[in-house]
């Protein structure tokens, strides 16, 4: 039994688990973890890649037919910097997909909504498939949708915090209102968080730190794969409603029978 596939832009994904490439103790381990996760969309920081080097070690480890690269603009502080960086990434990595990350605050790496919206608009015009990393702000997500982004990536909690879905109420509004896929990014620290996100109806999740920093990243990648599949299947199977008490019948309307 399999859950439905996911379409973003013109690509169809079997896996709803997106992964990252940072913080691993070496690139071989990263490759193994990503392989077992069955992830088909993998984000890579432009700043970590040698754009002039066709044999860059990170990229070399991601050369699988299944894997689509999602370059990210981590490090930029303004829309202008992001647009410039995305163009370089497109040229060097041969993809017009970009994970738009503009976080001028280096401490919590929280995304700047104003610069992100500006950059998204311009990148869409330049022909990019834009996936913006944003705070869990429903109105911002609608504004981004209007300028033509391919998906929105609201955060569950601060990047790398592993705290889970601290923004759950806003995420639910975003999921309810969105016409583009919603990928929950950042803060997912355990497979249970990922399963929960999927049960809520998120279209996908992006997980990096929780896999890379686990004692056994390969096993953890596999655990996330199963959790995401389970969560999505549960969502599609329609969860039974939560009730405070056991109820055997319909006490208020039984007389109508």
């Amino acid at each position, binding site marked *: 039994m399999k859950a439905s596939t996911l379409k973003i832009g013109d690509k169809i994904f079997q896996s709803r688990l997106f992964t990252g490439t*940072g913080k691993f103790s070496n690139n071989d381990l990263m490759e193994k973890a990503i392989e077992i996760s069955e992830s088909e969309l993998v984000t890579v920081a432009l700043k970590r890649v040698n754009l002039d080097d066709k044999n860059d070690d990170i990229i070399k480890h991601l050369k699988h037919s299944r894997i689509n690269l999602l370059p990210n603009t981590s490090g930029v502080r*303004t829309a202008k910097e992001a647009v410039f960086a995305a163009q370089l990434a497109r040229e060097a990595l041969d993809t017009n997909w970009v994970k738009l990350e503009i976080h001028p*605050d280096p401490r919590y790496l929280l995304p700047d909504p104003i610069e992100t919206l500006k950059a998204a608009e311009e990148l869409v015009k330049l022909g990019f498939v834009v996936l913006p990393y944003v705070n869990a702000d429903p109105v911002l997500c609608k504004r981004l949708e209007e300028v033509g982004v391919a998906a929105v990536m609201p955060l569950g909690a601060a990047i790398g915090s592993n705290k889970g879905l601290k923004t759950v109420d806003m995420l639910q509004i975003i999921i309810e209102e969105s016409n583009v896929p919603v990928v929950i990014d950042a803060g997912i620290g355990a497979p249970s968080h990922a399963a929960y996100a999927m049960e809520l109806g998120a279209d996908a999740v992006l997980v990096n730190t929780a896999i890379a920093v686990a004692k056994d990243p390969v096993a953890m990648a596999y655990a996330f794969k199963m959790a995401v599949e389970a969560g999505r299947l549960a969502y599609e199977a329609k969860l039974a409603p939560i009730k405070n008490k056991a109820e055997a019948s319909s006490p208020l309307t039984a007389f109508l029978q």
Partner: protein
Amino acid sequence: MSDFYSILSQHSWDDIKESIYAKTLVDAKHALHKKEFRTLEDFKALISPAAESLLEEMAQVSRQLTLNRFGNTVQMYVPLYLSNECQNICTYCGFSLHNKIKRTTLTDAQIIKEAEVIKALGYDHVLLVTGEANKAVGVEYLQHSIRLLKPYFANISIEVQPLEQEEYELLIAEGLYAVLVYQETYHEEEYKTHHTKGRKSNYEYRIDTPERLGRAGIHKIGLGCLIGLEDWRTDSFYTAMHLDYLEKKYWQTRYSVSFPRLRPAEGILEPKSVMTDKQLVQLICAYRIFKEDIELSISTRENASFRNNIFRLGITSMSAGSKTNPGGYAVFPEKESLEQFEIDDKRSATEIAEMLKLNGYEAVWKDWDKSLMQPKFTSS
């Protein structure tokens, strides 16, 4: 008067010192285990003598926080000394004006020769170092050097004399990423006894330097004090206070802290305050616990066995195979007499990367890209 200088003038060194030494084990335990963000008072408790008995617990917490934030990685950088000419008298420095050493400033050809050798070692992040000699090594020389080096390196930082805000803006536009400027000591009177001549003798101008950098929109500022000049706990507290102040005001800038301990060099003094290895570990862990995201850096001043262990406890960037004399990599590889201080861990970059790998850590050579930099505030 700078804002931070006026804040400093409201604090007495002796009162702060006393309050650090008065912290109790209960204060330290509270600071270590609290769930909310940690305050400067918590930092005091973590560096206090009372916290020494909590070292293993501090190390455990520091390690976990570092792993979460930075993963299993250590960033690699290397210093490139451009000049040892200097008009300052600093009691602890090998480049000090009165030291009878041969002075040299690298020419274009020499800079490129050094860059090629450093690049071949694997480095992509370079730190340019000079003394303070405004004629030989002024802002034009620095601007020119950055232009020469930009094709070789993804990330260029400097550790040079303090400059004006406009001069920093000029260098940032050329591709300068970070500036390291250590206060040496925050004890104003003591500072004056160690910096008796030259522009560096101006304490207030130096303390105001990170402020000018913040206004110029620099990506990263490196802070620190020279451990050994004054009581290390009090000086480290002032550094933390400076850091905390800057983070809130220049919130788009990232910060790093280094912990240089006085090392033997030509004609320098003995440390006034000696810091043991255990105390250095305590300080590193205290910084990590205080500020989870701060970059903590360790140089080749420290010995191999210390460096083999310390990256697990909170350090996030390391230099290796460093030469502290101008031209040390390729131009004058034999002239150690020109060096600023003697290095202890003499292992090569490859050996350090191998050591990290054996410990399950990846040496990161590139974590920045020239393409990510545009002159400041250009988006609007």
